[in-house]
C-alpha cells in the first residue's frame, strides 16, 4: 500500500510538472500571436470541416485569430458542462448539439444572448423550427446560431423490394407509402414474399413517428406530457403493434449486429436522418446501388443538428458573433454541405443550382439533396426539454423489452412511466 502511494505521488507530481510545462508553453504561444489580434478559441465536434472555413475567414479578417479544437461530441458537451459549472475554462465559441441546447439554456447566464448582437437581423435566413430550437421558449434569449439539421427520410433496399415484387423507383415507393397504414401493409407484403423484416430494430421506427409529432415528451414548462398527449403513445403503440406481428427486427441501434445488417440488407427500410448517409456508406461500402432513398410516410421529422454559442467567459463577444454570423450564413452552409455533407439549416440554399444539382452515385445518382430539402421544409417545430434524454432512454428500454423479451407493451409502458417519474423527481 505504501509503495503504491509512493508511486501514485510520483506519478501525480510528474503529471503536475507536465501540466505546468504545458501551461508555460500555452502562454508563450498566445503572447506570440496576440500582437493586437483578437484570439478566439472554437470548440467543434464531428466532421464539420470548419477548419477550412476558419482559414478562409482569417485570411479576410487578419485581425482575428481563431483556434479550432476538435473533440468527440460527448466529450465536448462534458467539457463544456464542467467548465460552465466551474466558471472557468470555457472557449470563446462552442458547438452545442440540439438535444443539449435546453440543458445549456438552463445556464443561460453563462452565455451571451445573441439577440444583443444582432441575431434578429439574420433570423429570416433560417428555417423557423430550427431557429426556435436555439432560443428560450419565450423567445427572449438566443443561445446559438444554427449550423446543420437532420431531416428524416426513408432509406430502402432496392434488392429487397425487387424480391417482394414491389417497385424500386423513389417516386413509386413514396406513392406506395403515403401513410403509416400503407407502410404497415408494405411491411406485411415484404414479410410474406421475402421473410424479411421491414425495419432492423424498434428504435428508428419509434423515432420516425415521434419526430413527426407536434409535441413530444415535455411541454414548454418542462412538464411531462406523454401520459396526456396522444402522439408519443401512438408512436409507441404503432411500433409495438408491428413488433408483435413479427415485422420488426431486434437489433439495438448502433450495435455491431445493426451495422452488419445494413450491409447484408436483411431488412426493407431504414427510417433515418440525412446524416445517416455517412453511416450507411461506412457500414455497407459494397452495397452502393442497393440502397435508395425517398420521403417518409406522412412527412418528415428532425433528428440532430447543432448551434454555435458564445460563453460569457469570452472577452470578444462582438468579434465572435461576427464570425458565427459569417460561418452559418447560407453561402458558408453551402460549402459545408458540398465539402462535408452537413445539411443546411438555411432554406435559401435549397434552391441554389450547386445544391439542387447534387447527386449521389451511391444512391443510384439520385438528387439526394433535393429529397432531404423537401423533408426539411415539412418539419414542424418541437420543444424538446432538458430532460429529454431521460424519457427517451426509458421508452427505448420498454420497446427493447417488447421486441426482445416478448414483454407486454402496456405493462412496459407503465413501468417506463414509473421509472421516468422516479428520475424526474430528483431534478
Amino acid at each position, binding site marked *: 500500500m505504501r509503495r503504491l502511494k509512493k508511486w501514485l505521488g510520483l506519478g501525480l507530481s510528474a503529471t503536475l510538472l507536465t501540466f505546468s510545462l504545458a501551461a508555460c508553453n500555452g502562454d508563450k504561444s498566445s503572447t506570440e500571436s496576440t500582437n493586437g489580434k483578437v484570439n478566439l478559441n472554437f470548440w467543434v465536434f464531428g466532421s464539420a470541416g470548419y477548419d477550412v472555413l476558419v482559414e478562409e475567414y482569417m485570411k479576410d479578417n487578419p485581425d482575428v485569430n481563431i483556434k479550432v479544437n476538435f473533440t468527440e461530441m460527448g466529450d465536448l458537451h462534458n467539457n463544456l458542462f464542467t467548465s460552465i459549472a466551474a466558471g472557468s475554462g470555457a472557449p470563446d465559441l462552442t458547438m452545442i448539439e440540439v438535444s443539449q441546447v435546453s440543458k445549456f439554456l438552463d445556464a443561460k447566464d453563462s452565455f451571451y444572448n445573441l439577440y444583443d448582437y444582432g441575431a434578429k437581423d439574420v433570423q429570416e435566413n433560417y428555417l423557423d423550427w430550427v431557429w426556435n430550437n436555439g432560443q428560450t421558449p419565450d423567445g427572449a434569449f438566443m443561445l446559438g446560431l444554427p449550423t446543420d439539421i437532420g431531416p428524416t427520410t426513408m432509406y430502402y433496399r432496392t434488392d429487397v423490394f425487387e424480391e417482394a415484387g414491389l417497385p424500386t423507383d423513389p417516386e413509386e415507393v413514396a406513392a406506395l407509402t403515403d401513410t403509416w397504414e400503407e407502410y404497415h401493409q408494405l411491411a406485411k407484403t415484404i414479410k410474406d414474399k421475402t421473410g424479411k423484416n421491414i425495419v432492423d430494430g424498434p428504435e428508428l421506427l419509434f423515432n420516425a413517428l415521434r419526430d413527426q409529432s407536434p409535441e413530444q415528451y415535455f411541454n414548454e414548462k418542462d412538464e411531462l406530457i406523454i401520459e396526456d398527449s396522444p402522439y408519443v403513445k401512438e408512436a409507441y403503440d404503432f411500433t409495438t403493434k408491428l413488433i408483435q406481428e413479427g415485422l420488426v427486427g431486434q437489433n439495438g441501434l448502433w450495435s455491431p449486429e445493426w451495422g452488419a445488417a445494413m450491409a447484408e440488407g436483411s431488412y426493407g427500410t431504414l427510417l433515418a436522418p440525412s446524416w445517416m448517409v455517412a453511416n450507411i456508406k461506412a457500414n455497407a461500402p459494397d452495397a452502393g446501388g442497393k440502397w435508395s432513398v425517398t420521403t417518409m410516410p406522412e412527412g418528415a421529422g428532425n433528428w440532430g443538428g447543432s448551434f454555435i454559442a458564445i460563453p460569457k467567459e469570452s472577452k470578444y463577444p462582438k468579434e465572435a458573433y461576427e464570425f458565427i454570423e459569417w460561418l452559418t450564413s447560407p453561402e458558408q452552409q453551402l460549402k459545408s454541405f458540398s465539402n462535408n455533407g452537413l445539411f443546411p439549416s438555411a432554406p435559401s440554399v435549397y434552391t441554389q443550382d450547386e445544391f439542387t444539382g447534387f447527386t449521389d452515385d451511391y444512391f443510384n445518382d439520385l438528387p439526394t439533396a433535393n429529397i432531404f430539402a423537401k423533408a426539411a421544409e415539412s418539419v414542424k417545430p418541437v420543444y424538446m426539454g432538458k430532460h429529454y434524454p431521460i424519457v427517451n432512454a426509458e421508452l427505448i*428500454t420498454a420497446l427493447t423489452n417488447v421486441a426482445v423479451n416478448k414483454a407486454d407493451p402496456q405493462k412496459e409502458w407503465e413501468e417506463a412511466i414509473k421509472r421516468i417519474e*422516479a428520475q424526474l423527481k*430528483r431534478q
Partner: protein
Amino acid sequence: MEVLRTEPDHKKLPPPKRRLSEKTKDALSAYLYISPFFILFAIFGLFPILFSFYLGFQRWNGFGEMEFVGLRNFELILGDALFWKSLGNTLIIGILGTVPQLFVAILLAFALNSAIVRFKNFFRVSIFLPYVTSTVAVAIVFGIMFNNQDFGLINIIVGWFGIDPISWGTTEWGVKIAIATMIFWRWVGYNTIIYLAGLQSIPHDLYEAAKIDGATIYQQIRYITIPMLKPVIIFTVFLSTIGSLQIFAEPLVFLGRTFREEGMTVVLYLWREAFVNMAFGPASATALILFVIIILFSSINMYIANRIGK
C-alpha cells in the same frame, strides 16, 4: 516544532540570524519533499470526499444554486426499487464473479507450485496476462462473444448442449453471467499469482516433518497450507469484496448507454444519476450509502475469512 526550538542547550545558542535549527530544517525539507503527494491528495482525494458528503444533502444540477434538502436525497434513493435492484445485482455479479474465481485461483496456484507442471514461467506469465488488458477492451470483446444473435460465439457453444440462443444483453441472468465471466477472466490470474507467492513462502520443512509423521496430502493441505495461507486469503477476499462492490466499467461498456436494469450496479446507478441525469445530490447520497455498505461487507468478510482454518 516549538518544542524543538526551545530545547537546545543555552551554551551553544545559534547566532540570532539563524532562526531554524538543523533538525528543524531537516524536518522541514522532509515535509517539503513529501508535500506534493499530500497537496495533490488534498485536492484530488480529500476534497472530493468531503464535498460529496456535503452534496449528499443538496439538490444541484451542476449549474444553478445549490439547495439544502436535508435527508430528501437519501429518502429518494432508499425508496427507489431500482437502487435495491442495483444493490442486488452488484452482490449477485460479485458472488458469481469472485467466489468461483478465488477457488479456481487457489487450484491454479497449487498446480503452478507443484513439481509436475513444466514450463512454469510460461504459464505464470500467461495466466497473469488478462489482468494487464484494459477493462474497456475486455468488455467490447466479450460484448461480441456474448452477442444476442444466433451466430454469437457463446450462443453457438451453448447450442452444442441443446440450449436455445440466449439474449445476453437483455435477460436477467444473461447479463449477469456475461459480466461475471468478464470479471472472472480478468482477475483470476491476479489472484493466482498472489496465492502462488503465498504458497512459495511456506517453508518446505513443515511438509517434510508432516510427511515423516505420516500425514496424508489432505492433512497437509488442511493443517499446513490453509493456515499458513490465511493472511493471503484474507487479503484477496478483502480486495475482491471491495472490487466487486465497485463494478462499473464492465456493465457500462457491455450494456452501452442503455442502462438496462438487469446489469445496473450501484456505481453505475450513481454514475448515471450524476453524469447522465445531472442529479448530483442523489448521486452523492448513493455514494455515501455505498460507503457504509462497503465497510459493512468488508467487516463481515474479514470476520468469516478470519475463521478459515480455525
